[in-house]
């Protein structure tokens, strides 16, 4: 069996050229790449677009599409190189793959063509900023959004990726984040939270009701996310092997348990379970199992999924009802809190309940400390940088549409289109 911590190994560039691509692994990684892109387009785009009001449906879809396009180009220009090639230090990668220079059709990384590794990682770089859209939905200017996301990608996503997966200081410390609890979910959650705070509430929040305009659309997106997440987590094994199989199994169980937990919380607390609740529990379960999906066993996955459903449920209540922060589509309480929770539980479930073991000589307590360092560093860096970026952009070009435009809706105002002519 191949080792679980393949990502770390892949960072050693000398290995990269030696190998030949294995067709089975390549087949799976091509598929996994397609699945992760599918999570964003159309998965997440629909999930989010269904939750906003009809007058803003296109603005959300547009943001997801534009992010996918712009991030892809930035990724090949510099993002990949700075994330995944050896840098001069522990904080940022090197320049050897700027514009993918030096990568030929024969380049191999691990057991797959390097082109596939570039693509697979690109899909992660796409979905992370796309998740942030939920924080500033229904009020941000499109141009400001493009500028913010581009800078955020290079200044937040890329360095954190290098720290965790590119051989940077967190990787060296033994920080465990299999498929992106810190890199993807904390980053997205904190980015969204800061955006929600800096932009301020939507007009009328929280007194005016803003019910989802199309829940079947949201559920459609949710189904796609569940399926696509197999590529996300089982793809993070970087091979079609037993580690991938186990990652898929625990991922699925995390989702299922998250569904059941959130549904039960609603049933207990409000008397009725809702479809928005069950899909939110699913996302919480998936986000929470993500960092742990290469380390825990099936029983651990059930524990993680159930905890995710309960903890994220309360976090949502807290942010929305108590703090009254308009993180409009609940990115922080679901993804951010889920990511944190999952990263913490790794310490305790890697070597219990059928987990696959901690590193030789590392105790639960030690791992817990390492995990807390990684979590804190990600929150701090992402929080500070997101705040500075948003404030800067607000000064220079302005973040929000004006009141009348917000009332009329972003679709007409920013894109001169309407979602529906039924």
């Amino acid at each position: 069996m191949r080792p679980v911590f393949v990502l770390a190994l892949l960072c050693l560039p000398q290995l990269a050229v030696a190998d030949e691509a294995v067709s089975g692994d390549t087949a799976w990684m091509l598929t996994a790449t397609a699945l992760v892109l599918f999570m964003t387009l159309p998965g997440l785009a629909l999930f989010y677009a269904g939750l906003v009001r009809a007058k803003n449906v296109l603005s959300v879809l547009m943001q997801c599409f534009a992010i996918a396009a712009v991030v892809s180009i930035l990724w090949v220009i510099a993002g990949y190189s700075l994330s995944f090639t050896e840098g001069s230090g522990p904080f940022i990668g090197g320049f050897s793959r700027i514009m993918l220079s030096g990568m030929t059709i024969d380049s191999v990384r691990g057991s797959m063509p390097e082109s596939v590794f570039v693509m697979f990682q690109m899909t992660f770089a796409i979905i992370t900023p796309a998740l942030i859209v939920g924080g500033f939905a229904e009020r941000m200017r499109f141009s400001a959004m493009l500028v913010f996301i581009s800078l955020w990608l290079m200044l937040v996503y890329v360095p954190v990726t290098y720290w965790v997966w590119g051989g940077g200081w967190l990787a060296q410390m033994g920080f465990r984040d299999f498929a992106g609890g810190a890199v993807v979910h904390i980053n997205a959650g904190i980015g969204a939270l800061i955006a929600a705070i800096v932009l301020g509430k939507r007009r009328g929040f929280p007194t005016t009701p803003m019910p989802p305009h199309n829940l079947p659309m949201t559920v459609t997106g949710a189904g796609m996310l569940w399926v696509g997440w197999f590529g996300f987590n089982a793809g993070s094994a970087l091979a079609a092997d037993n580690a991938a199989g186990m990652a898929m199994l625990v991922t699925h169980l995390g989702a299922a348990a998250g569904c059941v937990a959130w549904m039960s919380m609603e049933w207990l607390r409000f008397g009725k379970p809702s479809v928005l609740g069950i899909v939110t529990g699913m996302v919480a379960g998936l986000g929470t199992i993500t960092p742990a999906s290469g380390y825990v066993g099936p029983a651990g996955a059930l524990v993680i999924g159930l905890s995710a459903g309960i903890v994220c449920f309360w976090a949502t209540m807290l942010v929305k009802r108590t703090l009254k922060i308009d993180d409009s589509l609940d990115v922080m309480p679901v993804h951010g809190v889920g990511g944190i929770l999952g990263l913490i539980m790794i310490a305790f479930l890697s070597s219990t309940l059928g987990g696959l073991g901690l590193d030789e000589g590392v105790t639960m307590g030690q791992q817990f400390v390492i995990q807390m360092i990684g979590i804190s560093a990600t929150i701090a860096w992402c929080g500070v940088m997101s705040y500075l970026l948003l404030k800067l952009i607000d000064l220079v070009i302005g973040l929000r549409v004006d009141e009348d435009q917000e009332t009329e809706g972003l679709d007409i105002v920013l894109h001169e289109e309407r979602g529906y002519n039924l």
Partner: protein
Amino acid sequence: MKLVTAIIKPFRLDDVRNALSEVGVSGMTVTEVKGFGRQRGHTELYRGAEYVVDFLPKSKIEIAVAYDMVEQAIEAIINAARTGKVGDGKVFVTAIEQALRIRTGEFGDNAL
């Protein structure tokens, strides 16, 4: 001529239409509307954000009828629309001064 406007529960629409046909009213125009009144709306809940919906879906039926048909039409509507529960709706009668059939230019009762 009178215009009889009835606001009813949507699922009674087919019954009302049949009842009207039986008394000889052969044309009507229906609008989907939202009603607010004594009948309580429902609560919706989205990730813990509560949302009280006061407006309930109703169907508004408008029929232009000759004077002598007004009583029968109202009768037919009331019988077919009544469920006996709050929210069954209202009937209003107003005057029509003139009516025309676009296709033929006929007017008055002949237009109906």
